[in-house]
């Protein structure tokens, strides 16, 4: 029993009704929570890849969690990640990438994904966030910002 206007305005038909439950599961991105918020899993590692997390540097293996604000670094290696919304990002050798913001609460229409590519190469393949909110995804680099409208693209940044 729901009025049709409300049903229409629900973003891409996603639920408003259980928004609170979803928010509780997904978590808010506050500076304190950001360190803890799991945003992706490592799915592919070729050679060595590292995550810089607060003061710690961890070598990445398949199945490991990536958290908001993690900085991923590679030298010879490469690494592939799948995010909670199905976005896939793979990072090539000699790269440095940070996941500055990841908000995935579709029931409330709260969607945002900001990636910073400081140097190196990456491939981005869009997930649900880009599908539901075309303006929510940005890839920032030292020379330009890329606004993503639901797609697959490659970036290369010379960096420092």
């Amino acid at each position, binding site marked *: 029993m729901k009025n049709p206007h409300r049903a229409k305005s629900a973003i891409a038909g996603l639920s408003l009704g259980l928004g609170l439950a979803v928010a509780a599961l997904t978590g808010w991105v506050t500076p304190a929570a950001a360190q803890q918020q799991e945003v992706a899993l490592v799915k592919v590692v070729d050679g060595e890849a590292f995550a810089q997390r607060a003061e710690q540097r961890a070598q990445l293996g398949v199945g490991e969690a990536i958290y908001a604000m993690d900085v991923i670094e590679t030298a010879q290696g490469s690494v592939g990640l799948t995010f909670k919304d199905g976005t896939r990002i793979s990072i090539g050798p000699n790269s440095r990438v940070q996941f500055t913001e990841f908000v995935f609460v579709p029931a409330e229409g709260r969607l945002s994904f900001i990636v910073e590519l400081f140097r190196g190469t990456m491939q981005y393949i869009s997930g649900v966030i880009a599908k539901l909110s075309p303006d929510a995804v940005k890839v920032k680099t030292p020379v330009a910002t*890329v606004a993503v409208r639901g797609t697959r693209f*490659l970036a*290369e940044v010379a960096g420092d």
Partner: protein
Amino acid sequence: MLRKILSVVLMLGLTACAGGNRFVLLEDEDGSVGAITVENTAGAQTLESPGVAIKVAGAGTAPGRPQEISQQEIDETWGTTIGASPRKPRTFILYFIIGSDRLTEESRAQLPEILDSIKEFPAAEVSVVGHTDRIGGERRNAQLALQRAEAIRRLLIAEGLEPELIEVDSHGESNPLIETADEVAEPRNRRVEVTVQ
């Protein structure tokens, strides 16, 4: 002085040729093509066709005109990067008997395929989201959708899937595949979507 300027121009030119900062739009795996806009304080360029690249000389220089890029050039720069891309997530839709959390015959027969698919993903994660049609009240449907998702979760665990890999959610009647008026029966909306990634 002129020589100095010329050599700076030459150096910038060489840096640009070596690749530097490039953005390339590709076709999605399903053949569709989106768009990217590359923007800085000096200007912006939008890419809408695949296999086309934009170069950016620096933060203060407008992004260059879109130019075609060969597969060979793509492979040279991004071959390893593309090689590390994870497998594409897969979504299965399971249908239910009206008003119940019992699967239809056909959907029950699909379970083995889901389990096989899960094995193909390294560090698999499974999201199970329940939905209903618009017969009955909104709150009741939110519960029914959750029951449906929980029923699938139990079936997957019974088949040997580890409980911590599964995330369950309910969208009630608010996220239909097929839009209907209220109180309309629509079997295609009585479903659970299982996404494996």
